[in-house]
């Protein structure tokens, strides 16, 4: 009585639409991860270049180290990976691999930054941030907003964020060096560890170099304006 042909045709068309949606989503997910991988490769190259430059300039003055010496794209990878973690379209293994690379790049960049501050005797403008993705950590979410806002305000500030529970030996080493407890979020500023939530204003006080960064940014802005006016 019922002609099944129509049901079969409708089912086939629906299945094709479904299959296409899955295929397109996977394709775009892969493309996004490739973008992250490309940025990571660029950052790795930047770090290698910075290390080489640093080694070459070891004997010379700190004045020769130009602004923009360190890679600017680490923050961008972080934002992308945080977004990707909350989506379902990405391959978990690929994402894990990219996170691993990202954390290692952060650590390399941090070591370079540390050597730079020690050699040149400048005030440190970096923060190490440990968060948790395993336990419900509302303060981690708020601290994330604060650090993003700070990075927007002070583009030269370097924030190195680490997933406390991520299975990576280098993170475990950092945790043991700074004796970070599982009382997250944890921030390491100037070698001191702070636990819990701190506002933008708190952190501006805790990292005195930020004021210098702000003054430098203001001066640069002024120069740019006067150049334009001239």
């Amino acid at each position, binding site marked *: *009585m019922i002609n099944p042909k129509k049901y079969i045709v409708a089912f086939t068309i629906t299945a094709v639409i479904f299959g296409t949606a899955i295929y*397109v989503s996977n394709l775009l997910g892969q493309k996004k991860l490739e973008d992250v991988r490309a940025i990571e490769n660029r950052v790795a190259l930047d770090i290698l270049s910075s290390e080489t430059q640093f080694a070459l300039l070891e004997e010379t003055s700190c004045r020769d180290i130009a602004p923009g010496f360190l890679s600017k794209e680490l923050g961008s990878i972080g934002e*992308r990976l945080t977004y990707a973690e909350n*989506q*379902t379209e990405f391959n978990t293994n690929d994402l894990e691999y990219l996170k691993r690379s990202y954390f290692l790049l952060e650590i390399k960049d941090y070591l370079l930054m540390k050597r730079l501050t020690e050699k040149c005797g400048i005030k440190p403008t970096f923060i190490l941030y440990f968060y948790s993705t395993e336990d419900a950590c509302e303060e981690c979410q*708020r601290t994330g*907003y604060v650090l993003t806002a700070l990075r927007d305000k002070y583009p030269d500030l370097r924030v190195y964020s680490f997933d406390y529970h991520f299975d990576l030996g280098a993170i475990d080493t950092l945790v043991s060096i700074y004796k970070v407890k599982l009382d997250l979020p944890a921030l390491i500023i100037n070698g001191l560890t702070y636990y819990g939530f701190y506002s933008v204003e708190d952190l501006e006080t805790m990292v005195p170099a930020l004021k210098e960064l702000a003054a430098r940014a203001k001066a640069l802005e002024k120069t740019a304006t006067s150049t334009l006016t001239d």
Partner: protein
Amino acid sequence: MAEIQALILYCSLFISLFFEVFLLITYLEVREELDLEDKHLGKNIREFPTVTIIVPCFNEERTVGDTIRSLLDLDYPKEKLSIIAVDDGSTDGTRRELASFESRHQISVLSKKNGGKHTALNLALEKVESELVGCLDADSFVDSDALRKIVPFFDDASIMAVTPSIKVFEPQSVLQYLQKIEYSWGIFLRRMLSSLGALYVTPGPFSIFRVRVFRELGGYAHGHQTEDLEIALRMQKHRYKIVNSYGAHVYTVAPKSLGALYRQRVRWTYGFLNNAIDYRGMFFNKKYGHIGIFILPIATSSIFSTLFIFGNTLWNNLNGAVDALVKFQTVGFNWHSSLPSFDWFFFNTGVLPILATGVVMLTLIILYLSIKMAEGKVRFSRGIFYYLALYIFIVPLWLTKAVFNTIFRRQINWR
């Protein structure tokens, strides 16, 4: 839990897509039939059968006069058409209004104690002597050629009832404009269901039956306040054929306020769910064709999947709003970081959003065909805007109430 939630969402979207594809295939199949109906229906009627139209009224003093006048203006031989108006214990001036028509030989007026629409219809059915009988709600009006476009279907002896296309009468409020578009969608859907032999409602406004339907199956039942749905399901259960004449236009006064619309739709959805329970034997029973195998199950499941999808979307948006609030409280508003990013990386390209886009696109295609079918042409109107912007937010209101009342066996009122 998240996996189960995702699975339900995938299933709901698959079923929605399947239904839309099924409807579009049906449309492609019947396109030529529709053109023929447009050109020839109602033009060369050899013999006009006798018809009685029953007008049940309860407190309809404002509209019943126009309803009856629209029937008197029908382009149909006067001697073949009679009207029975039944005052179902009105407490307003309905009785007086009806009395003004009593002198017309085509019209009989009956009065009774209030007992509900089905009792008014049954009282009139006892007096009917014609071959065909129909009902016209006292808040509806017919196009003059409506009956001429219904009667030819009865040339096929197997057809037992014919339903019309219902449109909204002179919309004024936002909700009436919105319903105008919704009724266009209904016109498309009913015509497609007609081709599938799966109409599950013979609407109060101007559905016409062979009188033998009532003689053989009995009169109208209470049907959980939806007697027009119950009689249609009873007919389908007895394999009585119901078709739709989409060219026969009937206009109804749609609820103006949200409260009135809500009450009407709670009644319709509650009626559907409870009649579906009463006729559950038809579900997945291939003896009843498309209506049993596909249409009744999908109509029922769509109520729950709509609620689930809406609940899920609402929950996600609430979470997003809470996050935004926490962010605002933490770092304040910042033009740079508070506005959504237009970097393509941050567009959600998951399977669910892509599938949902597919469902929405097919819905828009069907909406286009529906408006074209109902109005003859498509142009962007405020009704379309209201429909697209508001409909999804108000439907869950009555679906939730109807499901709640069904689960907890709470009765509902007509008004």
